[in-house]
């Protein structure tokens, strides 16, 4: 893979890396025919972000050639190492004219070369690991509510919350107003808690199409990273959400860039009696084609759900597996695992009630167990279970 980023786009790339660094410890690089994708996921699998830079973003874009049996090369790099190259955004803007990213077929290093002022060249040779595709399963079409606002509006709203605040609740209220409120845990002592709530009028948004009375709670920290990127690039931010427990999807769209941030949301235990299907794990009925057999991811999802009913799947559930525009919702598998990458039981996710994001989670309660219906499409080369 070889690509060259020139001029102001170097800073955009740098900002994207900074944004991704708020999500996870590893940066996944995936060159495709439709552009170069940078992705990250957090350790508890409750946040996923992807930046897709179209070929036009680059001065030169050569994703490399895929053989008849091989796909285009994918790799992941330690986030800190990659971020180190773009650490100082002001100096990127001031002195870097061009950035070259080069990955030769049998090279052991990913090369990042910055061409700077005065003829100076900075070359970084980074260690990387080959990896499988990292893809969260989500579908903005399936979301009942959608808001679109200039990033500045949300940035100004979020500034009212303390930087240490973990979760925030976005809700719709009477008169089409949108509210933002800090999330307070049930166990918190109400007399010692400060609640901040702000209301935004419908006309402050570029578009509002929301289900009345809906609300979602998500992690603010991971959202802030995307927000600062959106603000700097002056792009409107679209928020797609649905019921509590289903992921919230933030998107930014541009002619040469597509950004997605998918965050798990807190499931509402009160709503469990009304819609058993949404309680606990988000069901992805076993599809006839792709079958992900990551039992660990499923186990994590099951363990973090509370009071998950074992009832049959709700008839309101579509049996169609959501397919994000360009990629297949394959399970993430990794060779040469580091301990923390095992989906397993990822320690205790920061908030037990945040569901592990769906990486093709297999099981629907009530169905026969995985052992009998499993159909593995692609065996691990290592034969790991």
């Amino acid at each position, binding site marked *: 893979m070889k690509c060259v980023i020139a001029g102001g786009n170097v800073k955009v790339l740098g900002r994207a890396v900074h944004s991704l660094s708020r999500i996870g410890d590893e940066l996944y690089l995936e060159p495709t025919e439709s552009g170069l994708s940078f992705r990250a996921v957090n350790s508890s699998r409750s946040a996923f972000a992807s930046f897709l830079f179209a070929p036009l973003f680059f001065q030169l874009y050569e994703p490399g050639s895929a053989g008849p049996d091989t796909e285009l090369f994918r790799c992941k790099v330690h986030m*800190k*190492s990659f971020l180190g190259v773009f650490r100082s955004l002001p*100096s990127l803007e001031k002195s870097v004219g061009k950035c070259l990213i080069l990955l030769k077929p049998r090279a052991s290093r990913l090369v990042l070369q910055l061409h700077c002022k*005065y003829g100076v060249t*900075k*070359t*970084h040779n*980074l*260690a990387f690991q080959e990896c499988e595709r990292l893809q969260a399963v989500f579908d903005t079409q399936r979301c009942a509510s959608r808001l679109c606002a200039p990033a500045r509006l949300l940035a100004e709203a979020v500034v009212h919350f303390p930087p240490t605040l973990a979760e925030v609740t976005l809700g719709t209220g009477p008169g089409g107003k949108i509210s933002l409120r800090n999330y307070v845990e049930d166990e918190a002592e109400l007399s010692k808690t400060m609640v901040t709530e702000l209301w935004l009028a419908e006309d402050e948004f570029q578009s509002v199409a929301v289900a009345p009375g809906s609300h979602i709670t998500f992690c603010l920290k991971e959202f802030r990273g995307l927000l600062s990127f959106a603000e700097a690039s002056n792009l409107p931010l679209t928020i797609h959400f649905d019921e509590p427990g289903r992921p919230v999807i933030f998107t930014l769209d541009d002619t040469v860039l597509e950004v997605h941030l998918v965050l798990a949301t807190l499931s509402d235990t009160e709503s469990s009696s009304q819609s058993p299907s949404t309680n606990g794990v988000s069901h992805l009925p076993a599809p006839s084609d792709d079958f992900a057999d990551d039992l660990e991811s499923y186990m994590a999802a099951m363990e973090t759900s509370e009071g998950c009913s074992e009832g049959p799947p709700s008839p309101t559930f579509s049996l169609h597996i959501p397919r994000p525009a360009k990629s297949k919702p394959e399970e993430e598998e990794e060779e040469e695992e580091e301990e923390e990458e095992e989906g397993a039981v990822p320690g205790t996710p920061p908030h037990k009630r945040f569901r592990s994001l769906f990486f093709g989670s297999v099981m629907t309660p009530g169905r026969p167990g995985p052992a009998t219906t499993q159909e593995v499409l692609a065996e691990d080369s290592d034969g790991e279970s």
Partner: protein
Amino acid sequence: MPFSAQPPASGERCALSASLDNARHLSSLLRAVHFQDYATCLATASGLRVTVEDAKCIQANAFIQAEIFQEFSVQEESVMFRISLSVLLDCLTIFGSSSLPGASTALRMCYRGYGYPLMLFLEEGGVVTVCKINTQEPEELLDFDFCSTKVVNKIILQSEGLREAFAELDMTSEVLQITMSPDKPYFRLSTFGNAGSAHLDYPRDSDLMEAFHCNQTQTNRYKISLLKPSTKALALSCKVSIRTDAQGFLSLQYMIRNEDGQICFVEYYCCPDEDITEAEL
């Protein structure tokens, strides 16, 4: 404003006496070599030299020539003592270290000789502080024996081009590798850290390059922890000269212009590191 202090009691002469209208001319240079607590001061008729060493591998010298001072007199041929540089700097900046235009600390320095403390009289805005700092027996200093005839490679760069690079050096690397060559890559700084290797190349025809005299391709490695303090000197300087000799000893000389436009020098000498095993390229 000029400060006239009380002369030493009973008319005794001081081995070293000096006065300086703006103590910052001294303190900023001393900061550029402050990577150890103790320093050795040598005063001669030409001026003051403050030396700091570490690990028997690195030596930094700050030169403040006599012309910088409003008054500078040394009674003997030379006067030498060891002193706590940390304490000296704390005293020189006792009125605060912010550089407000118009407000400056005036300094009078007095050293009666062997065994006596160094006396400092500092004044700002009518407030006077008197400091007495104990001195010690000077220790033997390293002699890098670096003279211009032994220099193999030499370049002079505008500091602006190196400042950021030094500030952002990958400190997870044990060494800083310096390559100087008449051919590509001409001048290269390399680190080998946890993230991988990084190379910074300066071409010989770069606008930053003021002089380029490289006769031989040399690659030498220096312990990065020893060289990192030189970043302070680099930050103050406008130009830096980088020289190596046949054994790979490194000389960095920084030209520093003070607030009044006067020129001072700071230099760093460093031994090449022999212990480091062959680094990856």
